[in-house]
């Protein structure tokens, strides 16, 4: 009984529904030969031959991921740096806020045609698209986080002579970390959207382009396997983020738990 409770039951909870869904899909494909729905085993084979053993992994997937990583990293660094500078100055904050709100509300995909014109098609433009779409949630959340800093914390820093760069490092950055991480989370999904559609829209390589090619040539199982690749990237990114967030904000989650229990 205890082994059931500790091991079997959680595993069952984890896999039961996925197995059920895949089973239903498999049974469905047994009876129908729908053009749009590939059967599961064949899809796995297609997936392996298309993405793992073929050269698409190095030719399309990795370059896409590299652009995604560069764009995100730049957006995070720039967003936090600018956010700190702006958030710490009340006048600059009031001056810039409406303009930034506009850019946050602007649906990021419209930046693609603009940057195509200004930079030209290529790697730089794709990274620039990701940066210019992802920076706003991070920037605005950093500004918000800096603004919301507890005045008692700031007085503590002042009274112990913690100022300038030390204050940013030891007080402001950690204090603003929860909203900053929330901004990064929003940016992740924007980055993925922009990576895919900038490739669909404007280039002749990369994951997004390849998947659209499959669709145009009616290579349906390959198309589905491409959708699966995007899904895996999305899920992996989300897990990496959750892992990092749990470590960075361990104190915050603990604090919230204590506060909620009170």
């Amino acid at each position: 009984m205890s082994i059931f409770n500790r091991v079997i039951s959680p595993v069952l909870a984890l896999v039961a529904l996925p197995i059920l869904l895949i089973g239903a899909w498999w049974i469905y494909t047994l009876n129908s030969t729908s053009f749009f729905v590939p059967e599961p085993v064949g899809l796995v084979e297609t997936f392996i031959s298309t993405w793992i053993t073929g050269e698409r992994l190095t030719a399309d997937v990795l370059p896409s991921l590299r652009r995604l990583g560069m764009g995100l990293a730049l957006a995070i660094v720039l967003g936090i740096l600018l956010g700190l500078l702006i958030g710490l100055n009340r006048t600059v904050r009031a001056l810039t806020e409406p303009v930034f709100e506009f850019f946050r509300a602007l649906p990021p995909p419209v930046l693609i045609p603009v940057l195509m014109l200004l930079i030209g098609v290529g790697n730089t433009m794709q990274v620039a698209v990701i940066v210019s779409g992802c920076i706003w949630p991070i920037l605005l959340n950093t500004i918000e986080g800096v603004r919301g800093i507890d005045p008692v914390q700031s007085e503590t820093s002042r009274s112990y002579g913690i100022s300038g760069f030390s204050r940013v490092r030891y007080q402001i950055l950690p204090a603003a970390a929860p909203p900053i991480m929330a901004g990064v989370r929003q940016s992740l999904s924007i980055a993925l959207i922009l990576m895919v559609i900038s490739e669909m829209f404007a280039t002749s390589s990369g994951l997004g382009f390849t998947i659209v090619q499959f669709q145009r040539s009616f290579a349906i199982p390959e198309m589905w396997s491409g959708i699966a690749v995007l899904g895996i990237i999305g899920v992996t990114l989300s897990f990496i983020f959750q892992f990092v967030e749990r470590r960075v904000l361990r104190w915050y989650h603990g604090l919230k738990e204590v506060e909620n229990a009170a």
Partner: protein
Amino acid sequence: MATPKRGKPRRTGDPPWMAPALGAAGIMGFLLLWEMVPRVGMVDGRYLPPASEVILAAIENLGGGDFWQAVTDTMQAWAIGLGIAAVSATVLGLVIGMSPFLKRYTHSTIEFLRPIPSVALIPLAVLLFGIGMESALLLIIYACFWQVLIQVLYGVGDVDSVAMQTAQSYGFSYVQRIRDVVVPTVLPYFMTGIRLGAAVALILAITAGLVIGSPGLGSSIARAQQGGAITNMYALILATGILGVLINLAARAVEKRVLSWHTSVRGELAA
């Protein structure tokens, strides 16, 4: 100052009109910069027309039927998609959230499906629906569904178990329990989901137009770009941004209204 609740003498910062004035100055400064950059030749004016030309083109658009047709198409996809996603996610969220069994057994599937980017479905949408509005709807519904579902699940998880047991012991039916105990708790979470979903829905409505060509502002932008009508392209992008701002403001206003009603009904402050 013995008690923290005693009102501290407020130090006069800036007068109340200061922040809006600075904000307006910021906007003017941004437009001025945008005006100057192509005029002094820092960027080719063919690729980035000056702000004044773009604003004039945008105003001109306001008088044309094509522009309003595109806005209507975009907003139609936005509203229908958000509506379907909100209703289905709320119903599913309530059913799953209220059953510990379902919650346990759907968790892994939800956590796996949720981060899948909705744009991954673009090829499928094209295959199934071509350039019709249905393509945009598929993307919008998929993206917004998770936003609302997750919030509703959080909300149901927040329902006070004592209140739930009390309702049960007084013989409240399933529907009554949902109406009188669950819904009031879930409402603020639901509103958050709608606010996030509203922004996401616009992003995908524009994306569908841009990439697939389903009717709306997105496809107008793509057409302007391909046809070399650069000034008009910028004018349309400006309009899209303003639409985004309006949707954000409206979503926040609705959220505030619903929640103020909510707190006055429940007689307590929402945390």
